[in-house]
């Protein structure tokens, strides 16, 4: 029997090396889905991060530590390495970060999506990690799937079919 995908809510993380597992973050708007995959060991991780960084600089407690882009990426990397992944082999992909509000007067000041993307770029750069592919920005929501079996990552937008990135 086919297993249900492991669905990540806001601020959640999942890591798996079980080929039957599919990790998914549904309906990402300004949120980012950030995946890391070690193709050799097949260890695959995904986080569903919400905001660029903690407003007061205080790193939140572990349960919600994947709410923020910067600490979320650091925690995912640390957890991946702990599971046995090799940092130098990790394939990083970014999905999401859309600006959902396209109304006059509201666009710029609330563009969390763009700030999320910028923070992800900076954090990954600081950690000496490169992004393999990204599908970010724009004005549409996205769903991201990570297939542990073949290290595939897909994106779907409203009214369209799922496709590889």
């Amino acid at each position, binding site marked *: 029997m086919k297993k249900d995908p492991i669905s990540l809510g806001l601020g959640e993380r999942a890591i798996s090396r079980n080929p039957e597992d599919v990790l998914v973050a549904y309906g990402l*708007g300004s949120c980012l889905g950030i995946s890391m995959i070690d193709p050799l060991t097949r260890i695959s991780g995904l986080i569903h991060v919400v905001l660029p960084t903690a407003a007061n600089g205080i790193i939140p407690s572990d349960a919600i530590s994947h709410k923020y882009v910067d600490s979320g990426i650091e925690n995912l990397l640390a957890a991946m390495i702990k599971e046995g992944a090799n940092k130098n082999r990790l394939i990083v992909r970014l999905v999401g970060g859309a600006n959902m509000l396209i109304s006059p007067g509201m666009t710029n000041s609330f563009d969390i999506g763009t700030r999320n993307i910028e923070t992800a770029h900076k954090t990954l750069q600081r950690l000496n990690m490169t992004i393999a592919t990204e599908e970010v920005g724009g004005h549409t929501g996205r769903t991201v799937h990570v297939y542990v079996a073949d290290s595939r990552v897909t994106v779907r937008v*409203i009214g369209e079919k799922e496709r590889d990135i």
Partner: protein
Amino acid sequence: MNENVLFDEKLLEMLKTIAGEGIQNAAYGFSGMIGRKIEVSNPTLRLVPLLTIPEIVGGPEDDAVGIYLRFEGDMVGQIMMIMPYQKTLELVDLLMEVPQGSTQHLGSLERSALGELGNLCGTFFLNSLAKSSGSSFRPSPPAVMVDMVGAILDVVIATAGGVSEHVLLMQANFMDGLRSVEVNFWVIPDMKALQNLIKNNS
């Protein structure tokens, strides 16, 4: 500030009354726009953790329509009305006075009608709030979004998320005769300003 202390049962009861009047008033504005009586059923108000919002509304990947506006003045906040895509098509039929099933997609005219509806409901809601609290508010122009539920709600979550871990959620169904238009009517007030509102009322 501890939000759990701020939001005790007594306060929620009081807000329920104010918001309940507001949503009735919003439905009244809605009725005026379509020229038919709209009833409000099952209005609920609760304090929910921010990160659980998408689960409350249903599948985060479902197609939906969101009408969003912000308000400022004596209190800053956001209003988001969210409804399933298919239900919205029926709602547009009502607004445009065409037979049920006529609207097949949401073009600029249909979106504009929905924006107007959001504007009207929002303004009526805020008027009621202003009246009972002695404050004044100015709503922004409405934004209409057609997308996945999760993506639409990110707007609310991202804006409120830097400030608080909980939001005030108000849900109500708007009924036109036997046809029910399920509208999730969210009001997300700024916590600090909310305190002032409470002070003025107690």
